[in-house]
């Protein structure tokens, strides 16, 4: 596998006994994230057996079934709890959690902040498409104000969550934001996230044309990619932009990178002390 790359490499990791093409809509960014994840795992040289992908419910939840790792498709919002169990039981396993924005911050919001506080050594990829895609386009905790959705036909009135700030405040060890347009940067963020000890979060901006774009004035998935290209800017550049001109722009990059050991490391260290000192 060493000398192959690109799409060929990705195919090495796909489960070809699953039906392809995958379930995602045309122009959905989730496939790009899947590719990026595979490249990152390959880039880190991890064995397929040592990687466990835990996914929640929703479009992002379907991602796990397509890759040839240990994969678990869990209940809505609860992926992090399963991942916590797996990581505590098998601390050597690289546990990567794939969640959507509603999955992680609405129904699973409590699990997200506590996983961050607990600093359990899993890496969470939060696929933020600003909408509940699978259920038909209802508003999610990251739907921007004013946006049209099935449940906000007159425009979203609530504030939205900033995933990066939320996870930073909750104490995550690694927090980053990328987008499916800036794939190479995304690859390196995911790799950093997996390498980093403790709880890591990578928020990935990904477009949902079918449920979000069509209702909010986008003519094609391509337009949404143009929007990503324009609006997702490196955080260094974002900081330079005067606040008034920021508009729809969001910063991307690595926001937090600490090397506090994860809960599982601390626990087994303590357990070794208990067993040794008996």
């Amino acid at each position, binding site marked *: 596998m060493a000398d192959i790359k*690109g799409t060929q490499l990705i195919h090495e990791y796909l489960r070809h*006994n*699953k*039906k392809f093409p995958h379930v995602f809509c045309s122009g*959905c960014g989730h496939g790009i994230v899947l590719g990026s994840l595979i490249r990152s795992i390959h880039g880190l040289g991890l064995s397929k057996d040592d990687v466990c992908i835990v996914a929640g419910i929703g479009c992002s939840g379907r991602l796990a079934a397509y890759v040839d790792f240990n994969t678990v498709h869990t209940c809505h919002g609860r992926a992090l709890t399963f991942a916590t169990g797996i990581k505590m039981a098998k601390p050597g396993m690289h546990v990567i959690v794939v969640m959507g924005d509603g999955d992680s911050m609405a129904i699973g919001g409590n699990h997200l902040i506590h996983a961050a506080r607990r600093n359990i050594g899993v890496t969470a990829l939060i696929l933020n498409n600003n909408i509940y895609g699978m259920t038909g386009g209802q508003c999610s905790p990251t739907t921007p104000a004013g946006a049209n959705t099935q449940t906000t036909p007159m425009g979203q009135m609530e504030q939205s969550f900033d995933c990066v700030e939320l996870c930073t405040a909750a104490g995550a060890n690694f927090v980053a934001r990328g987008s499916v347009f800036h794939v190479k940067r995304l690859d390196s963020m995911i790799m950093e996230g997996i390498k980093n000890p403790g709880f890591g979060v990578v928020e990935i901006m990904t477009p949902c044309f079918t449920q979000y774009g069509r209702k909010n004035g986008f003519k094609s998935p391509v337009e949404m*990619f143009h929007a990503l290209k324009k609006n997702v800017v490196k955080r260094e550049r974002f900081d330079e932009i005067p606040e008034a001109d920021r508009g729809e722009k*969001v910063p991307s990059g690595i926001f937090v990178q600490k090397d506090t050991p994860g809960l599982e490391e601390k626990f087994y260290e303590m357990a070794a002390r208990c067993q040794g000192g008996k």
Partner: protein
Amino acid sequence: MFRGSFVSRDREAYGKFTPNPDQVMSAKSKGKSIVTIFPDWCKGCGICAAFCPVKVMELNDQGKAVVVREEECINCGFCELHCPDFAIMVQPKVDSEIPAGSKSAHVNAAPNGSVESEKSIKEKG
């Protein structure tokens, strides 16, 4: 308050993608690649056609991407990285063909029998 990147309904029209001229003109790599598209896997989102700096692909009348100007390809890798359906493969011409087995295996990868209607399943969420 955080605002997502897909905010406005009355947003400005997005300009056409203008590739980096240095990259485009790297004549060194021009015409040295084979671009393959698996039509069974392509869903016709058009990302590859829209963002290809040298317009190698186009969408055909069935809405799927096809290679029309392979010789222009500068092997920038954008389409491969951004194809959500893993349907595009860019390979160096030196090998003159796709390595054994990989093409046919991937094109006809759909399993026999496992009929799914996942798209129709509406989940709690």
